[in-house]
């Protein structure tokens, strides 16, 4: 309040360099009105929609705002794709699990909602449990893959 005539009337904005601020009437709260690119919030402490981080380091070290990644499982045309601080994905672009039933535990067809990984039997590989790990064979058994047991002298590797 510059009308009182004391030396402490005007204070610098509690905002990152260059940002302007204003006082909200009634509640007398100071709010930054022109946060640096990519940031928002009362003190420019939040990332814009579609980005995540902790630009002021309020909950630990400073993490500049980065685009939501979500294992490339989000659609850039969507809004609210991830939590603005943690980056936790909020909107998966869902695809069918398509688990290979011969390779999954109890022939399950469901998978992790985050990674899409199906629950594989022993020595079975791939996201959809569709192949044996190297050195193993017989996915068709339905009990996982068996060791090849090739003789080291007679095989090429």
């Amino acid at each position: 309040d510059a009308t009182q005539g004391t030396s402490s009337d005007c204070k610098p904005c509690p905002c990152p360099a260059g940002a302007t601020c204003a006082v909200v009437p009634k509640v007398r709260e100071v709010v930054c009105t022109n946060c640096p690119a990519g940031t928002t919030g009362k003190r420019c402490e939040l990332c814009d929609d579609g980005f995540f981080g902790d630009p002021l380091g309020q909950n630990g070290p400073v993490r500049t705002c980065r685009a939501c990644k979500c294992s490339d499982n989000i659609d850039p045309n969507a809004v609210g794709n991830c939590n603005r601080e943690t980056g936790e994905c909020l909107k998966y672009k869902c695809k069918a699990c398509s688990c290979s039933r011969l390779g999954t535990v109890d022939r399950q067809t469901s998978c992790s909602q985050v990674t899409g990984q199906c629950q594989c039997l022993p020595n079975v590989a791939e996201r959809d449990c569709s192949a044996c790990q190297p050195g193993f064979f017989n996915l068709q058994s339905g009990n996982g893959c068996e060791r090849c047991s090739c003789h080291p002298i007679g095989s090429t590797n």
Partner: protein
Amino acid sequence: PRPDVDFLPPGTHLLFAQSGRIEHVPLEGHDMKKAGARTVLHLPEKVIIGVAYDCVEKMIYWTEITSPSISKASTQGGEPTAVIDSDLNSPEGIAIDHLGRTMFWTDSVKDNIEVASLDGSQRRVIIDSDLVNPRAIITDPPNGNLYWADWNRDAPKIETSHMDGSNRRVLVKDDLGLPNGLTYDSQSSLLCWADAGTHKVECMSPSRGDRSKVVEGIQYPFGMTSLGKNIYYTDWRRDAVVAVDRYSGKESDEFQPQKRTKLYGIATAYAVCPSGQNYCAVN
């Protein structure tokens, strides 16, 4: 200037959302008076998506996704008030029937369309099937019609129904990409959309079904509104409001706010309500 709520001066304006604020640009005829642009509402912790204007009570309505809710505030000053704050997940588009005193909104996670009175009461789901990514929604109050777009990448479409959800029909499904924005001009009876996939603005007459291109080669439209000969859309690449003359197909102006970040929904705040009445208004 007061940072949270500002008065909207008399006249017609564009209202648009940019991150945690709703800005206005005065219109003089169809021209944007860019020097008069101001923040109407500053909600720094929110992400505002959809914006609508009630010309009767001169209130702004908006959808917000960080604490999913629908709120309103008077353009004559006044505190923002939540109207709906439960059982929402990702509310996006919002439209008002100023004659029937109702609002409609899309939810892109619940994949439905709901209606409620402007005070939030009498809430009801009117469409809850065959929606994947519903976003834009608009009303045609005199005729009692609703229009919405679904940007489902596998099968984008633009649909219509009566305001109670009955008589649902697909209007457009061919040669669409990401139809993010929709607007309806009651004088010409044309429904127009802005597509971030085909990079075009196109229009059609819902009754005749004929379709025409207004402009192509646009960048990344999100929200859309119109006034007379002009169409206005927000653009995610340009961080700007773009004005296009619908008859010449030429871009006539651009407004780029000082803050560079994505612009979302846009609405026209009429100085005076468009004339007309409908069934719901008299029953």
